[in-house]
């Protein structure tokens, strides 16, 4: 076939794979609970598409084509497993309506991704694996890419993902949307997992390391999927708003030479206005629900920062108030260090240091932002020697070379 045809087919495969991966995996695994087999079947289907589509043309409904091919592959796998009796209902489900003619005319099959998200963040699964599981099963990221982001050896990440999927298949983890009494806690785990993929830019604290995971796009995509599936949940909208605010500042975080610029020194003209506008809309809608939670409060703090683009100043007392609300629902180290930085701006460095001193010393031995804030405040009080010691700790714990350089300059 001609090259245009081939290119067209490859592009379609790429697009369908990206957009439909999670939908297909969720649909294929919702009855079998076997994520690994569903993923294998889908990758077989994608290989088959790469063989057929360039020659025969892209089918009218590519997603349905993939689903049919994946189903056939999955039936083969299950038959090979020789557990025919137990698998009967599964095979029945897989073969029902599985002729291509039926599927290529009906574009709809149920979107089971919400169930899949709840499975990935189930309390029986190691919380450290919630995000990697989501990235793999919903987005189709490979273990090596996930391993990079989470600073884990690729082989180890592969083994951990395999173990988690074995546990899911082993049973006890239902593929369902939790009932009302459990829902808030279960949803929180899903939100936490998406947020963990994003990794926050701690740039509201001068010189704190950013710990970004290079998965911001993926995290925002997951949040958008979740919002589409749960449009009435305020915290889902709050999380998306929070990520959009932070993402909007990405172009302002480095100068032309790649040097780190803390939030307070960023030029608001470099912030992405379209993302801030979108964040504002989501946050306003979230607040209308009247259930204010952690992510809405964090987004609200970022919203105050974003206002500097219009007013030219930062309303630190408003930020302090939002942090005080936030501390009632989350006592994470990052929240407390951020609160200290905000208090210092609103009420002076002594007040900020007092907040820092209330944090247990053991907890911050590995926590870079604490030392960056402490160094900054001690410097403002003219305590040069103590400030230098704190700068050293912040420098030693920094991972991002640009942040490290920035702190070394500040230390002097």
């Amino acid at each position, binding site marked *: 076939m001609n090259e245009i045809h081939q290119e067209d087919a490859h592009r379609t495969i790429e697009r369908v794979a990206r957009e439909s991966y999670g939908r297909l995996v969720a649909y294929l695994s919702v009855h079998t609970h076997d994520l690994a087999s569903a993923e294998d079947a889908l990758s077989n289907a994608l290989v088959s598409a790469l063989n057929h589509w360039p020659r025969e043309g892209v089918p009218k409904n590519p997603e349905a084509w993939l689903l049919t091919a994946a189903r056939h592959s999955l039936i083969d796998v299950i038959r090979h497993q020789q557990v025919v009796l137990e698998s009967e209902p599964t095979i029945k489900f897989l073969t029902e309506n599985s002729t291509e003619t039926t599927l290529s005319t009906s574009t709809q099959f149920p979107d089971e991704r919400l169930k899949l998200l709840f499975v990935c963040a189930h309390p029986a699964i190691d919380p450290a694996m919630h995000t990697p599981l989501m990235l793999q099963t919903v987005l189709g990221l490979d273990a090596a890419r996930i391993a990079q982001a989470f600073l884990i*050896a690729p082989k180890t990440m592969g083994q951990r993902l395999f173990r988690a999927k074995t546990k899911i298949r082993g049973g006890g983890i239902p593929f369902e949307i939790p009932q009302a009494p459990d829902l808030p806690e279960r949803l929180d785990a899903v939100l936490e997992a998406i947020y963990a993929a994003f990794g926050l830019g701690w740039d509201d604290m001068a010189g704190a390391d950013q710990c970004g995971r290079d998965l911001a796009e993926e995290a925002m995509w997951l949040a958008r999927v979740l919002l589409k599936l749960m449009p009435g949940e305020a915290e889902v909208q709050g999380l998306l708003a929070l990520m959009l605010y932070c993402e909007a500042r990405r172009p302002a975080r480095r100068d032309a030479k790649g040097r780190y610029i803390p939030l307070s020194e960023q030029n608001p003209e470099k912030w992405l206005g379209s993302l801030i506008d979108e964040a504002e809309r989501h946050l306003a809608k979230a607040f209308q629900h009247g259930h204010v939670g952690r992510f809405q409060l964090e987004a609200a703090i970022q919203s105050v920062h974003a206002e500097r683009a219009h007013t030219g100043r930062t309303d630190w007392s408003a930020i302090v108030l939002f942090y005080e609300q936030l501390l009632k629902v989350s006592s994470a180290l990052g929240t407390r260090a951020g609160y200290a930085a905000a208090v210092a701006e609103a009420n002076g460095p002594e007040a900020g240091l007092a907040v820092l001193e209330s944090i247990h010393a053991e907890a911050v*031995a590995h926590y870079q932002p604490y030392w960056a804030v402490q160094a900054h405040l001690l410097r403002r009080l003219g305590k040069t020697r103590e400030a230098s010691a704190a700068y050293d*700790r912040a*420098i*030693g714990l920094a991972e991002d*070379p640009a942040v*490290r350089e920035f*702190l*070394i300059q500040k230390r002097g």
Partner: protein
Amino acid sequence: MQFALMIYHTPEEFEMRKNDYSHPHLGAWRGYYKALVEAKVYVSANALELPETGTTVRVKDGKRRVQDGPYADTKEQLAGFIVLELPSVDAALEWAARCPGASIGAVEVRPLAPEAMRRGFTGE
């Protein structure tokens, strides 16, 4: 559990050793050392002289073979190592990422094998 962080330098980074005490590059290493000690994970460390000061010895078929320079002819060469006491390899990788050497050359993390050493050295 103890881990070795083996630090590999590019020729440029070996050059930086000539910088004076106040240079930012050395400031990064000083900060890193302080952070390791304060976090109570530091066990020991050593730096190695430049690769060209190395000499590699082999005995093959009863004959001595001596070669100028380091064992492997690669751009990045072992420059030193740090031994840390940590609960897991995950924690060791976190510290490796913070190592100033990781953003110029490379840092290899490997668990120490005290069992292999005991058996090899004493036969017990």
